[in-house]
């Protein structure tokens, strides 16, 4: 188990963390070693969280600013709790009621936050790629808390952490991600970590909502396939991940109705029975119970959905710790 210590303490080269990234923008370029480092560090943080006083002073003097251009409950709260548990100072900003509403550009905003003294900026933005623009224009570390329909790396890492706790190694496992994959930043980031760790991934949903060109995406050890046939996809699956289905997709004509989506793609007990016995059921939240997932499955035996949320804090603590420590070294 990883020992957490004062970042000011001398670090011997062999113990130096193998984390050298200024930013965490997606999981697509993370090496297996980097992913393992996040996992190991998260284990330590999970242990810290179980203590009676679950608070450290490791990041004392580090300023973390959350910059949210989109509504969020769990991600922002999770980052805030994580940062505070490590003793960091946290400032929360939202686009409404800030200089963003007065027309300030993203670049000017992140430069301003840097000038104020932000060490790490956790950012959520409705535009795919926005954190990349921000990261190129500030020396502060940028953590992508979700950008448009592109990426959500901390969600993918906490999902991986949760899977490993239950299923052990990922090698040879089969993960099915079901729903509106096309518009899902969670699905994309999960795809890269799962493939890297050796799990085969099946992306499944209505034809209008699956990114067909991801069929055949692969790592050295695993492969992604894309299908519209849920029954086939679920056959023998080890992990089933349901994605949030938005009513907006019906309004835009991408699906005929939520009713038809439910009848074709809802993860319910009957369908889950096709998966391997004891298969894990996951959901990045917030759930529409009764739409993409039935309540009995969401709260059933295989469900680790609540655990995903609580693991989120530990994993985000690990990421904040690694990034802040890398900045100081």
């Amino acid at each position, binding site marked *: 188990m990883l020992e957490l210590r004062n970042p000011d303490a001398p670090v011997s080269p062999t113990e130096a963390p193998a984390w050298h990234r200024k930013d965490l923008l997606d999981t697509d370029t993370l090496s297996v070693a980097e992913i393992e480092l996040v996992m190991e560090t998260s284990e330590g943080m999970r242990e810290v969280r179980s203590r009676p006083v679950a608070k450290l002073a490791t990041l004392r003097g580090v300023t973390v600013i959350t910059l949210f251009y989109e509504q969020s409950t769990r991600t922002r709260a999770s980052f805030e709790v994580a940062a505070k548990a490590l003793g960091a100072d946290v400032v929360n900003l939202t686009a409404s009621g800030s200089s963003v509403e007065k027309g300030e550009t993203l670049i000017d905003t992140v430069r301003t936050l840097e000038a104020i003294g932000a060490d790490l900026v956790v950012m959520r933005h409705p535009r795919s*790629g926005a954190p990349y623009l921000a990261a190129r224009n500030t020396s502060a570390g940028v953590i992508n808390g979700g950008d*448009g329909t*592109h990426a959500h790396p901390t969600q993918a890492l906490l999902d991986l952490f949760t899977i490993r706790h239950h299923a052990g190694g990922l090698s040879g496992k089969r993960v099915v991600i079901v729903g509106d994959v096309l518009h899902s930043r969670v699905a994309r980031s999960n795809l890269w970590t799962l493939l890297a760790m050796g799990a085969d991934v099946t992306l499944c949903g209505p034809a209008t909502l699956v990114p*067909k060109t991801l069929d055949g995406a692969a790592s050295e050890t695993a492969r992604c396939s894309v299908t519209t046939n849920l029954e086939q996809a679920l056959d023998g699956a080890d992990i089933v991940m349901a994605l949030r289905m938005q009513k907006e997709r019906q309004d835009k004509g991408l699906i005929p109705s939520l009713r038809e989506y439910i009848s074709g793609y809802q993860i319910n007990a009957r369908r889950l029975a096709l998966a391997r016995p004891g298969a894990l059921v996951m959901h990045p939240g917030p759930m529409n119970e009764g739409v993409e997932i039935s309540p009995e499955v969401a709260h059933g035996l295989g469900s680790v959905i609540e655990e995903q949320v609580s693991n989120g804090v530990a994993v985000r603590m690990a990421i904040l710790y690694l990034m802040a420590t890398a900045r100081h070294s």
Partner: protein
Amino acid sequence: MSRTLLIRGGRVIDPANGIDGILDVLVAEGAVSRVAAGIEAGTATVLDARGCIVTPGFIDLHTHLREPGFEQKGTIATETLAALRGGFTTVCAMPNTNPAPDSATKVEALIERVARDARVRVFPIGCVTRDRAGRELAELAELAASGCIALSDDGSPVANPRLMRNAMELARALGLPISEHCDEPELSHGGSMNEGRVSERLGLPGQPQAAETAAIARNIALSEATGARLHIAHVTTGRGLELVAEAKRRGLPVTCEVTPSHLFLTEDAVFGANTEPLYDTNAKINPPLRTEADRLALVRGVNEGIVDAIATDHAPHAVEDKLCEFDDAAFGISCIETALATVTTLMARGELNLLPALRALTAGPASVFQLPAGLGTLSQGAGDITVLDPGHRWTVDAARFASKGRNTPLDGIELTGAVRAVILKGELVHEQEPAGV
């Protein structure tokens, strides 16, 4: 009284007249007077063109000058100087200005500004519909009479097929071509790049290829029904080009252009060259950069003569228009100063063939818009000549552009081929020593 100029020892290529050889060109009294071997210099100023190609001044059917209305992006003065440096002696000004040239008064005002500020020949393109809004027709006869050489709503396709049909009926009677951005807006709706591998990887909304091909098919059908000349602006898809080729085989009055950007780049430019995505807003263009298969089809289309013109779609933007989130960034590439070099680089790679490519920069576009006699040729009386060094290697430095728009994905890229000199109306107006040799 203009000087006499002898352009000596270059490879003279004049596609319109079937000339290709090491020859001299004598320019006197503002016009080409002789093209022959071994012309005596006499008192003429000599331009040594050995190792260079001497060809008619280039003609661009698709230029955004931005004035009036968007002078922060470019002006007639800056963008026509950029054209000159790029070897273009004639540009056709697209009407996405504010106000848009949808009446004779506005066209006349534009012509006055051009007379005052332009560094090359400028022909105005008038609107198809009022304010390019796609609702009611502009007064097309008035636009024709005031000097417009074509009609277009530029980046706003005429979505309503009935309105387009009526526009074509009237344009045919006036003898004007309609240059159409072929796009089915309900299909491309909200897309900021090509729909496919890269857009799905980056989580960006895509424009499907069918948005272009469906609109090309519709407009060819309307051209056939009305007999109007249809010019398809910036074809980007291999399938779209096949539709044009088929229309041509059937003898329909259909022409098309491709841009140097689509000949040179693919959708991968949005991702960038590294493992981490760049979301390069300078590679955001409408219609979007497509796949490598499409790019190769366009190159083949030029070589086979299906493509009538290489047109730049030069679209200068202010820094702030591009320094923002990808979906919010403006469409367009400032490329009139790199257009020739991208074409010659493709020649150096063995992709594009010299003769059809030069035809698509000279005689081809002159014929598409039926420009005044002499333009795009080295016939006696013609006055516009571009001298280029096809082997000169240089590195693009957007900071040195004459254009106000520094928005190019080619910044820092090495290209092969450069403009050496430009003669406009018989005068040597631009000369550039090969830099960095």
